[in-house]
C-alpha cells in the first residue's frame, strides 16, 4: 500500500464515511457531500472513489440487508480502517502544518 496519496474528492468521501459511521453507503454519502459542500455530486463519482479507497485499504465494506426502498436490493456499507484514519490524520496534520507556516505578512493586503 505504497500509494497513500488521495485526491481532494476522495478525501471528502473518506471523511464523510467517517461522519456517517454506521450508515455510510453511496446514496447517503452522495447526499451528505452535496449538502455539506454545496456542490452537485453524482453518485457515479462517489462509487468510483469508494471502490478506489477500498482498494487502497482505507475503507472496509460489508453488505447490508435488503431494503424495499432499493427494490429489494442490499447496500454496501463502508467503514474507515486504521490505515484510513492514519491517512486522514496525516493529511490534516500536513495542512495545519503548512497553514501555520504562512507568515502574517502574506495576509496583509492593506500596505501598498
Amino acid at each position, binding site marked *: 500500500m505504497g500509494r497513500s496519496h488521495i485526491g481532494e474528492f476522495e478525501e471528502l468521501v473518506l471523511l464523510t464515511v467517517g461522519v456517517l459511521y454506521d450508515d455510510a453507503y453511496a446514496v447517503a454519502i452522495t447526499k451528505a457531500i452535496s449538502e455539506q459542500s454545496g456542490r452537485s455530486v453524482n453518485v457515479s463519482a462517489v462509487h468510483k472513489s469508494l*471502490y478506489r479507497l477500498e482498494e487502497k485499504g482505507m475503507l472496509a465494506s460489508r453488505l447490508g440487508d435488503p431494503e424495499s426502498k432499493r*427494490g429489494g436490493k442490499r447496500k454496501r456499507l463502508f467503514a474507515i480502517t486504521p490505515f484510513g484514519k492514519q491517512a486522514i490524520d496525516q493529511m490534516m496534520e500536513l495542512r495545519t502544518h503548512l497553514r501555520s507556516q504562512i507568515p502574517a505578512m502574506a495576509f496583509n493586503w492593506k500596505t501598498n
Partner: protein
Amino acid sequence: MGGRPRIPRLPQYFFRWYCRRELYEELHGDLEEFFYERVEEKGLRRAQWMYWLDVIKCCQPYAWKDLESQNSEIIMLKNYLKTTYRSMRKRPLTSAINILGLSFAIAICLVPYAFVDQDLSIDQFHENKDNIFLATYHADRDGDVRYYGNSPTPLAEALAADYAQVVEACRVQDRQVVMKNGDRVFHEEVRYVDPSFLKMMTFPLKWGQPSALQDVNSIILSEDMAVKYFGETNPIGSNVTVIFDSNNTKTFAVAGVANELPKAHAISFDFLINFENYKISDPAYDLNDWTGLVDATLVQVKSPEDISVISESMEKYRILQNSVVEERPIAEFSFEQLTTLHERSRYINNDISFGSREEGWVILSVLGLFILILACFNYVNIAIVSASTRLKEIATRKVMGANRRGVITQFLAENMILTLMALVIGVLLGSQVVLPWFNELFSENLELRLLDPQLWLFFISMALFTGLVAGLYPALYIARFDVIGIFRGSVKFGRKNKLTKVLLCVQLVLACITIANAVYITQNNAFQLSRPWGYDPTNVLYVGVNDQPAYDQMRFAVAQNPNVLQVAGSSQHLGTDSKTVMLHLPDRQYEVSEIAVEANYFELLGIQLTEGRLFQENYESDDQKVVVNQLLVNRLEIEDPIGRTFKVDDIRYEVVGVVSDFHFDDFDSNMVPTVFKVAEPEDYRYLALKVREGTTHETHDFLQAQWLAIAPELPFRGGFQEDVFDGYYEYMASGSKFMRAVGFIGILLAGLGLYGLVTLNVSGRVKEFSIRKVLGARVSSVAAQISKQYAWLCVVSLIIGLPLSYYWCSLLLETFFVYHMPMNLSGAFIAMFILVSVLVGVLAIQVRKVAKSNPVNGLRAE
C-alpha cells in the same frame, strides 16, 4: 408492489449489460433508491430522465465487466476479427473490390450530403433569423400572377411608424458605382442600407462597430473588398472615393470591415453605406414616392407571430400604392421569413437572395445512391459466392457449438469491420479528393464540417445502411447451411443463386443509366457548343461609356483605326444591358425588353431580318418605328405584325420589321421578347465594333489605351462579344466531366463486380473445364460455357436498362436545360455499346485464363 413507478427498461438493460455482475446489486440498488426518491420529489418524468443520466454517468471502468475472462462474446469477436483478416488475405482481389468499391461509393455520397447541408444552412447564422422578414408582393402581369421581392420605397418607414411590433425596418438598394482608392479603380456594387441593417443581420465585423453606419460618411467593406483596396492592413479611418456618376462623387471613411462570411450565405455585401446617400447619388430620387421601388424592405418583429397581424392589415398600403401606380397594380403584400427565404427565393422575382438548387439535390443524391447500391450489391454477390469456399469453416464452427445466431453474428461482424474500413477510406477520399475536385469543377465551396454532429449521424447511418444491406442476406444465407451435407460434400451453394442474378441484373441496369447519363450530357454539351446565338458575335467588340462626350471621343478614335470595319452606337447592348418597358396594347399590357440602337446595329451583329424592313440611316421618321423579334410576335399572337402599333410611355410606335430570335444571355436563360427602337445620338452609351478577322485582341488593347486617354479615372468597361456568355461553356463542360466521372465509376463497379463473380465461378469449375478440354473441347465451347449464364443476364438488363436510361436522361435534360438538344436514341445505343464491350472484356479475360491453363494442373488440384 403493484403501484410502484416503473424504472425505464432500456437504460436498465444497458446498465445490466455493462455492469459487473457482483456489483450489480449494490450499484443498481443505489440508482433505484435515487429513482424512487426523485419520483416522490420531482415526478416520474424527471426521475426517469435523471435515471438515464445516472446510467450513462455510471458507465465507467470501475463498473465494467471484466471483458476477457467473463464474456465469451468478446473472445468470439476477437476470433471473428482474426478470420476476417485471414479471409481478406486469402482473397486480396475480392476484398479490394469490396472495400474500394464501398469507399468510392461513400466518397461520392459525401458530395450530395455536403451540397444539401450547405443549401440548408444558408443564412442560418443570423441570430434574429426567425424574426426577420422580407416584404414581398404578388402582382398580375399580363394574366400571369408573379411574385416579387422588391417593394415601394416608403414601405419600410411606414411599417416602422404604424406598427409597434416592428422592432427594426430597413431599406436595401444596390447600385453600380466606380470605387476608387489611389490607383485602384474598379466598377463595384454598393449596397445602400439603413443603419438598422447590421443590427438585424448579424454579420460579424472584423474591425469597427455596426453602429458606424449611422454616419452618412461611413462605409463598411467586406473582407474581400478590404483586401482588394487596402491589402492586409487595417483600413479603418482610410478614405475611399465613390463615383456615383460623372456629376456625383463622394469620399467615405472606412468605418468597418466584415469578417469572412460563413460559406453558406445568400445575402451578403461588398460595400455598405447609409441609405441617405441615395439622395446624393440621385438628387431627383424621392424617398417618399410610392412609385419608386427599392430592392428590398426588411423588417424585424418582436416574435414571428406578429407578422401575420401585420400582413393582414397591409391592405391600406396596397390601396395607397395602387392609387399612385395605376399601371402596375399590386395584388397583395406578403412577407417571407429569413430562415426560409433561400428555399423560397426561386419563386420570387427581383429579390436580394437566391434560390436553393433542389434539382441539384435530387440528381446528386440519386447518382450517389446508384453508386452506393452498385457497391453494396457487389459485396452481397461476392459474399454469397465466396461462401461456397468457406463452407468447411462454417461447418466446423457449427460442429464446435456455434449456433445459427453465432454464425450470423460472425458474418455481420465481418461485414461491419469491412464497412468501417471502407468508411474511413471513403471519408478520406471524399474530403481530400472528391469534394475538392467537385468544388473546382463547379467553383462551389462545399465543405465537410467535421465537428457537426449531423455529419457523424450521416456517417453512422450510412455505415449501418451499407453494412446491413450488404451483409444481412449473406449472413442469413450462410447460417442456413446444413452441416452434415457440407462434410459429405453434397452441398454446393452459391453457384446458381437466384438472388445473385437479380442483383447483378440491377447492377447492370444502374450502370447502364449512369453511362447513358454521361453520354447524353456529353452529347448535349456538344449541342450547346454548336448552338447558334441568333446573331454573329465573332470579331465583334463592345465598349460602354458614361456620357455623350466620352462616346464622341471614343467614336472619333476608333474611326482612325483601320482594323475597325464598322461601328454602331446604342443605348443598351446585347448581352450586357437592356431596359424593361411595358407595352400598352389596346386590350393588354406586356413586359418586354427594349434596346435602342443606331440603324446599322443589326447588320453589325448579324441579326437576321425575317419580315418587313430595318431602320434606315438618317431617316427622321423612323423615330416612332420599332423592330421586334419573332418571339414577341409569337407571344402576342399577332397575325400580321407589320404596321401594328402600341404605346410605350405614352408614345405610339409602329412595327416596321421582325427579326429572328437571339439569345440575349446564355442558354440557361429564356429568350426574351424584345423591341428595338432608334436611339437618339445623345443617348448612345455603347459602341459595338466589327473588326477585321484576327485583329480582335489588337483592337481590344487599342480600345483600352484610348479609354485611358479619354477617361483615366474610370475603369474600362468593354470586351469581346464572344465572352458575354461569361463562363457558361466552362460550366457546361464541368457538368459533363462530372457525369462522365460518375459514369466511369458506375461501370467500373459493375465491371469489377462481374469480374469477381466470374472469377469465383470459374475457380469452382476448374475440374469441369479441365475434363472438357482433355476430351477435346475448343476454346469457343469453353467460352460459351462460361458466358452462357451471363449473356442472357446482360440482355435482360439492357432490355430493362435502356428505356429507363432514356427516360431518366430526357427528364434530366428537361429539368436542367432551358434549351436542350432533341432527345435521340444514339446516346442510349452508345451507352449500350460501352457497357457491352466492358462486359465482353471482363468475360474475355476469364476465358483466356481458362483456355491457357494446362488441364493437367486443373485435374491434379485438391
